[in-house]
């Protein structure tokens, strides 16, 4: 599938709406042309009749036609805008859903890359960029085609063959120029997008590393580099805009010159008696009226590369525009069954990144209820990688993890996450209410359940004092909570999942010692009923009788 067919499939879903919008656009332009041409015809005919050169001029039809064209143009324009935008926004709304599903279906390593803020922003910008395709490219192309056909048909009916030829020739020239513009513009647009993301990288370095740059006196060099990039980037952008606008004016000039040629021809035919004077004026003004339809085409196609580039990145994420927008995500439907047997053991396990030396190897242990396993070791030694492997989110390099006799990553996700509750080191909460965060995937939880869990982690009182209680919004990336509060909310989330196997990565990070001990005392019975791995920097703060493994 190419980028083009991706776009075709995408907008096909609302093809009735889109087609109606295109027709209305053609009608808008048609009535604008009619208004001008009919007015010219009417004035010339009136002048001839007034001078006694034309007999029996019927007044009602042309003046009614002029009024109708004036009204129709307005109505068609409004309808076209509303319909066209409605269709496009519906398509883009569906595409957001489909893109989310596509990203959710990506294999985990690819999905991890989407943690980068830059990629996320780009995904959103890419989806928004696609609105230009029907609104600025296909719509005007189709409508201009219809307007040209109408005008050429009328010219063929009223005048000798060179008249329609002139009009189709004009349209053909414009479309050929647009095709050329599309071809050259696309490579430039793509290059522009690439250059912009490189500039962003340099900007992140400058703003993020300013302390080091100032300390080592490198700030000036980086500033110069940024200025150079800006000059290149803005210069390329300027050229891009200038070509688009220049093409617009050039096409308008071409249309005006063609209208003059049409006028000369028509006046010539008039002198020969082939056409009447009012028709001669009508032909010229009709040709002139095409400029609105034709002038935006080359510029829009010159910039079409931006949409194609966006489409190709979306395809790269596995977004398929032919998918029905409401295909459910299969693996993610609750309720899944937790396996009855939650026996959990690790044999000869080596963890790490594929193709690299293992971070940890030769691990052997079995999880037993009542004896939570405390794992500690230096930063960067691979504790997080180990927990991800245990949770089945990363394949082991060697050896195995057995959950009820089977490797966790082979269990369906529903079963696995019912069996394993994993609290990673960083838990980005959703920008939603506390209740919505806690109820994720478990809509059946009552308010009492939530309050009980919040009480355990000592969040209930602050939330009650604050006033909005369970409806308190956590904010973007949990910004409306302190680090320790966010950590405790994540812990409450884990308690509510109530899984038989529990993996905790620094569960008490950001809490002071007393609070940590109070919470630990409260959840200790809960932990001791389960099979637990707890990773920490501070093993001495954990109960003395829990077994320990020191890494490194």
């Amino acid at each position: 599938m190419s980028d083009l067919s991706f776009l075709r499939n995408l907008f096909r879903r609302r093809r009735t709406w889109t087609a109606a919008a295109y027709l209305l656009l053609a009608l808008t332009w048609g009535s604008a042309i009619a208004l001008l041409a009919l007015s010219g015809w009417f004035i010339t005919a009136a002048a001839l009749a007034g001078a006694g050169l034309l007999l029996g001029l019927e007044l009602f039809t042309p003046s009614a036609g002029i009024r109708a064209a004036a009204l129709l143009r307005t109505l068609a324009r409004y309808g076209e805008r509303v319909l066209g935008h409605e269709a496009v926004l519906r398509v883009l709304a569906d595409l957001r859903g489909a893109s989310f599903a596509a990203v959710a279906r990506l294999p985990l390593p690819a999905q991890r890359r989407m943690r980068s803020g830059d990629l996320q922003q780009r995904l959103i910008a890419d989806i928004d960029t696609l609105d230009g395709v029907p609104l600025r490219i296909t719509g005007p192309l189709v409508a201009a085609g219809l307007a040209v056909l109408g005008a050429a048909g009328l010219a063929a009916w009223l005048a000798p063959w060179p008249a329609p030829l002139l009009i189709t020739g004009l349209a053909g020239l414009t479309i050929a120029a647009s095709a050329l513009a599309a071809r050259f513009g696309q490579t430039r647009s793509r290059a522009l997008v690439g250059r912009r993301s490189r500039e962003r990288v340099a900007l992140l370095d400058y703003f993020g590393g300013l302390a080091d740059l100032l300390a080592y006196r490198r700030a000036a060099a980086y500033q110069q580099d940024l200025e150079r990039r800006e000059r290149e980037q803005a210069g390329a952008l300027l050229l891009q805009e200038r070509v688009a606008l220049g093409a617009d004016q050039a096409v308008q000039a071409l249309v005006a010159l063609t209208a003059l040629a049409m006028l000369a021809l028509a006046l010539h035919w008039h002198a020969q008696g082939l056409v009447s004077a009012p028709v001669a004026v009508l032909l010229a003004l009709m040709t002139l009226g095409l400029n609105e339809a034709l002038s935006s085409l080359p510029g829009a196609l010159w910039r079409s590369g931006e949409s194609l580039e966006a489409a190709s990145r979306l395809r790269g994420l596995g977004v398929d525009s032919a998918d029905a927008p409401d295909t459910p995500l299969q693996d993610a439907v609750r309720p899944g069954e937790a396996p009855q047997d939650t026996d959990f053991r690790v044999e000869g396990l080596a963890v790490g990144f594929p193709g690299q030396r293992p971070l940890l190897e030769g691990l052997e242990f079995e999880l037993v209820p009542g004896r939570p396993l405390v794992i500690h070791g230096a930063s960067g030694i691979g504790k997080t990688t180990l927990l991800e492997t245990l949770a089945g989110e990363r394949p082991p390099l060697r050896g195995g993890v057995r959950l009820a006799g089977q490797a966790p990553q082979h269990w369906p996700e529903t079963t696995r996450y019912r069996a394993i509750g994993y609290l990673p080191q960083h838990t980005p909460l959703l920008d939603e209410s506390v209740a919505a965060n806690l109820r994720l995937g478990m809509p059946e939880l009552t308010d009492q359940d939530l309050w009980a869990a919040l009480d355990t982690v000592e969040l209930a009182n602050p939330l009650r004092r604050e006033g909005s209680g369970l409806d308190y919004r956590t904010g973007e990336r949990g910004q409306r909570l302190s680090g320790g509060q966010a950590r405790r909310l994540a812990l409450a989330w884990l308690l509510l999942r109530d899984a038989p196997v529990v993996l905790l990565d620094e569960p008490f990070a950001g809490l002071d010692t007393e609070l940590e001990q109070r919470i630990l005392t409260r959840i200790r019975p809960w932990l001791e009923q389960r099979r637990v791995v707890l990773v920490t920097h501070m093993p001495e703060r954990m109960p003395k009788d829990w077994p320990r493994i020191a890494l490194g």
Partner: protein
Amino acid sequence: MWKAQVHGTRMNSAADIDTQAPSIPAAASRELLRVLLRPHRNWLYLAWLAGVGAGVATIVLAAAVAWSIHLAVIGEDSALPWHWLAVAAFAVLLRYGLQGLRDWSGQQLAFLVRGDLRRKLIANAAELGPVHLAQRGHSGAWASRYQEQVDALGGYYARYLPALGLTLAVPLVLLAAAFSQDWVAGLLLLLSAPLIPVFMALIGMGSEQIHEAQQERQNRLAGHFLDRIRGLDLLRRSLALEAARQDVSAAANDYRRLSMRVLRVAFLSSAVMEFFSAVAIGLVAIYVGFALLGFLEFGPAAQITLFSGLFVLLLAPEYFQPLRQFAQSYHDRAGAVAAASALAPLLTTGAPHPAPHGANPPPTPEEEDRSGGRGQALRHHPVEYERSPGTPPKRPGPPALQLRAVEVRYEAHAPPALVIPELSVAHGERIAVVGPSGSGKSTLLALCAGFVRAGSGSVAIAASARPFAWIGQRSHLFHGSLRENLLLGSPKRVTDADLADAMAAAGLRLDDPTLPQGLDTTIGEENRGLSGGQVQRVALARALLSGSRLWLLDEPTSALDPETESDLLTRLLEHSHARGITVLLATHQQAVYQRLERVVRLAAGRLQEQGRV
């Protein structure tokens, strides 16, 4: 306590700053837009001139075409009026050429203004320093301001401002031409034009109200998708992916409905404009037609000719064209004002320290005297620092840093963040700066680094203390290879052997599995592949290679576990001791500061005691 966290410290985060932007008075943003225009306003005048010239060419074109038709249809001579058609063709070229020039100048203006603004942003960021910079948003937010928000100003200069001038000038010129031929037709045009802005203003006000009422909901829905992508891991582990997918679709459709409400009003206002212009053209055509037929006996109608009728008819659509362009560019203004109000506060240096000359007295002769010879002059901050000559000085020598009666404030009327009556740091001295969090440790270090300035008092820094090494709580690694990162502070040529030595000294192993290509391993976004400890080690190796004589360390090991921390500190202290490097190390851990020979204690921003261990 909860409230304080929510409404106090948390509000400093980057995203909040951007959403708060609209509360900044619109006057500041308009002032910024004006100031940016000033140096390049000639391009705007050129755009206006070209636009008016195009209007005149349009009049010539309409006249030449109308006259050609008049001659050919009514005139006695049936030959084609070639010379008038040639004039018309020339007018066509002139008109579109001038319109092209108009657009070209507008683009040039926007290009120059954006370039100026970006240079200002960059220079201002360095002027603000990393401390004030971070208070105004994280680096991603700054990058977005630099790229997207500055771009959002483009349309204002490229389209809105040229259209603003021309929307008055060109219709006036065309109106004068129409009046010269037929004042009734001119009057028809004149009367229909003011109706347009009146109706549009009415509709525009309505849309503004809708917009304000919906803004918050719209922003939230716009962020919804991003939020769910960020929360993918949580959703997966909650088995809530399918629910989230439905949620995303529902939010996207809500967003669509909201957007359409705003758009419909905008379309209605442009429909009003189109309607009036179409009605006016129709009225002119019917008036001219009936006058030519001789049905209208009053005023100029009796004298109307085919030429004057066609001429007025051809001008009618052109008369409304600038108004339409203005209406189209109106949203450029709204976007630019919003962007400018976000950018304006970033372009003031903002840190409320008084002007350096007023508050910081010039260096006293006494200071100069104490500085001693050989390029070790104690200079007053901020000044150009000379590079120090090679060998480390012996202790006790002249101080590397000397602070006297220093006060630092982040807000003009807030209590001072730091008060230091007197602090002198000798060359090669290693000092722990201790105190609870928020006591001003980082401010003291930032002051010594020159990242913040003293509101009063004097800060004297020896030339040998520049450049210095800075290791913060989370060091920044630059995009590029490990080698490039290590060489950041080393202007001279360094061999791979030196690099390997420095890395070994910092405790970094080149054969580490996270460094598959050794020195040429690429380090990507968010220090890809390196752990917190490794990042701090790279920063340490970088500091070693730079040969800096002053190390400012702001809790460099706070992100590390105790063993790694102790190991890294041992290396830091060994190297600084062996090379006689002056060290200021902020920490709140006893295990750390016990290992340094001098301790400076801060509490609530005040220097409490200094003592030797």
